[in-house]
């Protein structure tokens, strides 16, 4: 959040005598000419993204519930104490972490396996890739509705319908008809998100695989390296930065997930995550101070997760800056 933008740093010191000063100000003008194209984007981003967050931080230290306007005032760290001491809120923090870690890890592993499959030559590879990316292209809210009503529904959803069809095939009517959403609400949300994010991870990893130089692998194979050894010592190190890029982007977006939790369980059955809880706290409970404290906690959590992955992105940068 606080990475300094430091565009204005590095001012050249202006010397006392005349010729130096002209040279200095000419360079200054040239510097500003370089910065000029950057400034609109930078100013826009600072105003629209940083100001609301500063306001959120300020409100997070206030007692402010719009039901009780007369009680508005400074509240110290009360709201933060509530976030970590209130069981429901603690569980929202925990759910966010579990949801993010599960979805990112499972979709990374699945995406890796599928990318390895799609990296081989076979008939109809383009068609399979096109089928694979479809889940990523369905509007998230439509995907969530689809999973809830067309797939998980206990009465006519595709999952129970398929079970029924299979049982009927063997002449039985006793197929188990599971109420997926009440039996395993968290897993249901995770499955729908893994379905959406695996294609994303697969795309990034496939791009990584296809950028891998082929001659090293050929040489290793000639020398008798097994497929596993080639994966372990050649493919995996090459893919590392792609895995971490996928993890970083996935984490940033899944921590924020609102659509799936809102739609599939409406935060019920112990599935509420931080974004959903914040939404509820603002628009149902009208507790602005508490909601803001949760927002700040979400940001801090995201930064912690993302910092790990950032180191790798930064090493990627170094490669690029060396051009």
């Amino acid at each position, binding site marked *: 959040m606080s990475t300094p933008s430091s565009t204005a740093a590095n001012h050249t010191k202006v010397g006392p005598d005349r010729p130096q000063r002209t040279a200095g100000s000419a360079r200054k003008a040239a510097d500003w000419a370089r910065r000029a194209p950057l400034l609109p984007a930078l100013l*826009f*981003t600072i105003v629209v993204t940083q100001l609301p967050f500063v306001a959120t931080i300020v409100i997070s230290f206030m007692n402010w519930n719009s039901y009780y306007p007369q009680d508005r005032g400074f509240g110290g760290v009360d709201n933060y104490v509530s976030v970590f001491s209130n069981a429901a809120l603690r569980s929202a923090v925990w759910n966010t972490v579990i949801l993010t870690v599960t979805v990112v890890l499972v979709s990374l592993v699945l995406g890796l396996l599928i990318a390895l499959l799609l990296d081989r030559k076979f008939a109809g*590879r383009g068609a399979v890739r096109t089928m694979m990316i479809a889940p990523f*292209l369905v*509007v998230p809210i*439509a995907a969530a509705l689809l999973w809830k009503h067309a797939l998980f529904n206990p009465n006519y959803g595709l999952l129970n319908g398929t079970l029924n069809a299979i049982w009927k095939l063997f002449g039985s009517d006793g197929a188990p008809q599971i109420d997926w959403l009440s039996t395993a609400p968290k897993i249901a949300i995770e499955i729908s998100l893994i379905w959406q994010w695996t294609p994303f991870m697969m795309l990034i990893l496939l791009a990584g695989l296809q950028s891998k130089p082929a001659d090293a692998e050929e040489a290793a194979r*000639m020398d008798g390296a097994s497929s596993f050894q080639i994966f372990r010592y050649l493919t995996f190190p090459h893919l590392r930065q792609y895995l971490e890029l996928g993890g970083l982007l996935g984490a940033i977006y899944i921590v924020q997930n609102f659509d799936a939790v809102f739609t599939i369980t409406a935060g019920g059955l112990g599935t509420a995550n*931080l974004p959903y809880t914040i939404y509820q706290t603002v628009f149902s409970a009208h507790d602005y101070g508490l909601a803001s404290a949760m927002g700040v906690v979400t940001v801090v959590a995201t930064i912690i997760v993302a910092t790990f992955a950032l180191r790798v*992105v930064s090493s990627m940068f170094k490669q690029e800056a060396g051009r």
Partner: protein
Amino acid sequence: MSTATPTAVAHPHVPTSKKEQRAREMNRSKPVWGLLAWVVGILFVLPVLWMVLTSLHSETDAATNPPSIAAALTLDGYRAFFSAQPAAPLINSAMASVISTIIVLCLAIPAAFALSIRPVEKWTDVMFFFLSTKFMPLVAGLLPLYLFATETGTLDNIWLLIVLYTSMNLPIAVWMMQSFLAEVPVEMLEAAQIDGAGLIRMLWSIVRPVAMPGVAATALICFIFSWNELLLARTLTGTIAGTAPVFLTGFVTSQGLFLAQLCAAATVISLPVLVAGFAAQDKLVQGLSMGAVK
């Protein structure tokens, strides 16, 4: 890479029949892997196909157990969806996505120029600042934005959404455009400069051709993210400026559950993204890995 050397030492450079056998095994196993890939691909696309198939069934056929795959096809679901007056939300979504994408490009391209072609000092710090704004979940700024919109009377105004979608996509766009512009060969720029080409001339004849695919990829991704956005749209718009995703959530609750209608609505609303995404698969890959693919 050098970690593979021990294996190389252990096995001298003499092709043995065992290795040839393994190579043949690899060839023979290929159809199996291809088949597995097809199975996985079909599993992943199945829910989408199911959505489209259900949208083409009558409500009674849509809600049978076991599923009626071969039931008669009908456009009733789509008729019901279009009679629910989805024009306004679809237009709002198109406006918010297209206009914000255009503004993003107008801001991101010059910024990326200043970060790659003629980089300002400490350009990596600036890049990290842009990325770091993405660490802030939208929801953390939601309340101040809502209060701002109530105070200024911009609640339920599509232009507020356009500004916010611009800020949501700008950092990613700057990153993507920076890595695409970094592809422009420095030697070509220097040569053009020596030949006396002005900045505009250089931008048009050298930078533009290299950067165009990147601009397309960036625009596509900004469009998809804006089209898909729900949380801001749901909290900051209402009856006038509501977007397609908001309409979709309301569609379920106000109508009760009509599965075929719901699937028709979900299909129509996903269609622009599906079409654009399928048409530009390769660009999407490049854009998503933010130009890390060289």
